[in-house]
């Protein structure tokens, strides 16, 4: 009789399989760790740092940190949540996020994580960057005001669609999302509405046209339960080409 290896997370024992990260193991066990740039179907990327935990006393990213037998992990502590709140505030300040009129309200992971962490103040002076909308494509549009540079669309287009439609360009504060066309317009890329890249954006950047606000308030993914109660939804799974819109 073999027992699987475990680590403790805030005192709770979490089993894991060889090769799993702390975040993957926790989510599989329906235990929530805040995250933004992680997606259950993709290899971890480790850019947002919202999943920061303390593993055996060290600050690390849960989404990239390999689980180890006997490891002691701190997650839901005031110290870590404070850090996460600051990161979320910075993301809000860097883009233009107008939740009351955003069609991704109630679907948006950034908003959900913000609510869950009870981010109630702006924290930073907002940049109000000028970012254009790209509506050139007949079926998909981009509202770059909301991009948090998580690269999920880049990974989806590269790894699943094999199209390389998206990429990041520039450095530091000038870093931004670009599309693979000389004109710079989505219409001139190979993008199709059925692409994996059209459904992975955690915030409302890459959206199907004419579908906004079709789901009533009360039935959107984060209306019923906070994201922290939906950990299992993010348990790792193999990449699926077509998935029901959630």
């Amino acid at each position: 009789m073999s027992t699987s290896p475990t680590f403790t997370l805030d005192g709770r024992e979490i089993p894991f399989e060889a090769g799993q990260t702390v975040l993957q193991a926790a989510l599989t066990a329906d235990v929530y760790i805040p995250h933004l740039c992680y997606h259950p179907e993709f290899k971890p990327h480790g850019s947002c740092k919202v999943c920061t935990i303390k593993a055996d006393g060290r600050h690390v990213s849960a989404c990239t940190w390999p689980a180890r037998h006997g490891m002691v992990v701190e997650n839901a502590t005031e110290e870590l949540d404070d850090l996460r709140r600051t990161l979320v505030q910075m993301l809000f300040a860097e883009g233009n996020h107008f939740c009351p009129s955003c069609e991704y309200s109630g679907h948006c992971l950034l908003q959900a994580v913000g609510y869950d962490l009870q981010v109630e103040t702006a924290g930073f002076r907002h940049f109000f960057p000028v970012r254009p909308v790209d509506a050139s494509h007949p079926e998909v549009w981009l509202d770059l005001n909301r991009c948090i540079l998580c690269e999920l669309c880049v990974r989806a287009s590269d790894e699943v669609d094999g199209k390389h439609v998206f990429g990041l360009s520039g450095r530091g504060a000038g870093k931004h999302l670009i599309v693979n066309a000389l004109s710079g317009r989505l219409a001139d890329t190979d993008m199709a509405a059925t692409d994996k890249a059209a459904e992975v954006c955690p915030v409302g950047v890459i959206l199907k046209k004419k579908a906004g606000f079709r789901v009533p308030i009360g039935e959107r993914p984060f209306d019923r339960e906070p994201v922290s109660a939906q950990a299992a939804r993010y348990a790792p799974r193999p990449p699926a080409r077509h998935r029901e819109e959630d």
Partner: protein
Amino acid sequence: MSFEMETAPHPEQLRRVAIEPVSRVEGHGKVTLLLDDHNRVQQARLHISEFRGFERFIQGRPYWEVPVLVQRLCGICPVSHHLCAAKAMDQVVGVHRLTPTAERLRRLMHYGQILQSHALHFFHLSSPDLLFGFDSEVARRNIVGVAAAHPDIARQGVLLRKFGQEVIRVTAGKRVHGTSAVPGGVNKALAVAERDGLLKDIYDIIKWSREAVALTRRLFEQDPDTYARFGRFDAGALALVRADGAMDLYHGGLRARDVAGEPIFDHVAPDTYDDYIHEQVKPWSYMKFPYIRSLGPDDGWYRVGPLARMALCDFIPTPFAERERKAFLAFDDGRAAGSTLGYHWARLIEMLHAAEVIKDLLQDEQTLGTELMAEGARQGRGVGIIEAPRGTLIHHYEVNEEDLVVRANLIVSTTHNNNAMNQSIREVARQYFDGRELSEGLLNHIEVAIRAFDPCLSCATHALGRMPLEVTLVDAGGHTVDRALRDPGEAC
């Protein structure tokens, strides 16, 4: 003629009294009176001193976002903008007839908004003036004073408003910033439990609305002269009416009559509005002055809102409200129906009508249907017109092939009433200010006149946010002689 007090012959010799902004009016406005050496009012203007073009926020946005986005125009009447933009976008997606259920749910939301807005206006903003008199102690002349002196009235006011808000919540999805009206239909069906929750209270709501109408009628009966005379002037009128001439606050054709009550146009299709209505800009106000094109800017101005709708419709299609409309029109040989304070009475008749319509919609099984969306062929232009609580509201959008709004033109209710409000201020100034010193009570007479229109200045200026109250007295040389800050009170 009508503009004789808009511009005094020698304004440089006049003293300036500014009431800024008008208290218990939604938003920010400023009244300036230019006085001569004998404190006679030589010039009166309501101006809007701030403007942020909201159209800019809409341009470049996808059309399906607009019904939700425009709710940010105004914290007071977001539902009217939500529905009006959705009506315009119905045209853009080529839907000229909603499903029967979608149409009923939109109407339910709209009449819920009428009910809550009219209840708020009457009980919170106007009843203090009406019940205590325009010269009464300022400290008492507010909703707290009403609650102390007339607890039943205050309680019913609160419950009527709450009921209207609940109708909005179950139809729009949220009490404020709902999302349910989408181009081509609605996104939310009404649950049986939600319907039943409203139905159990509707008879009380109708009863209290009838009592509110009766209360206002009694106020007119006690002092018909003051009510008929106060800020009175004759004016043309504009409103939507149903194809059979009935009052319809959600949809219809435009009807206009001139100052003598003669028809100017009738059953004008909403999407041709700009052939009939133009707007004039004046250098002293950011609020535009709409007018009926065939009569020109000097004679083509008009009133909108409850008073205009009462006069223009051939009948109200619900029994209690129709009976009250007849009594209103007949009262004092029709003098109440043309008076500025007649707005209050007309508003409450509409509140009663809204309650009756809500009852009918709740009892209609089609309201509970689940066919919510219709489809059509995409178009480049959409015009929506609705009778908002304060009057005719027009949203006009041009949408390009990328589905983005390239042009937006909004004419809000308060803007239609711009000239009428200025007119009533001038009349009040004429009646109550000439040769007298300024007092709080006198200044309030002007505010009472403006308030009768229930203006939404935050809407009219498309401004976001509000300003503190300030009263300034400026002399002919432009120097401030006196300044006082006033508490905006329960403006919201």
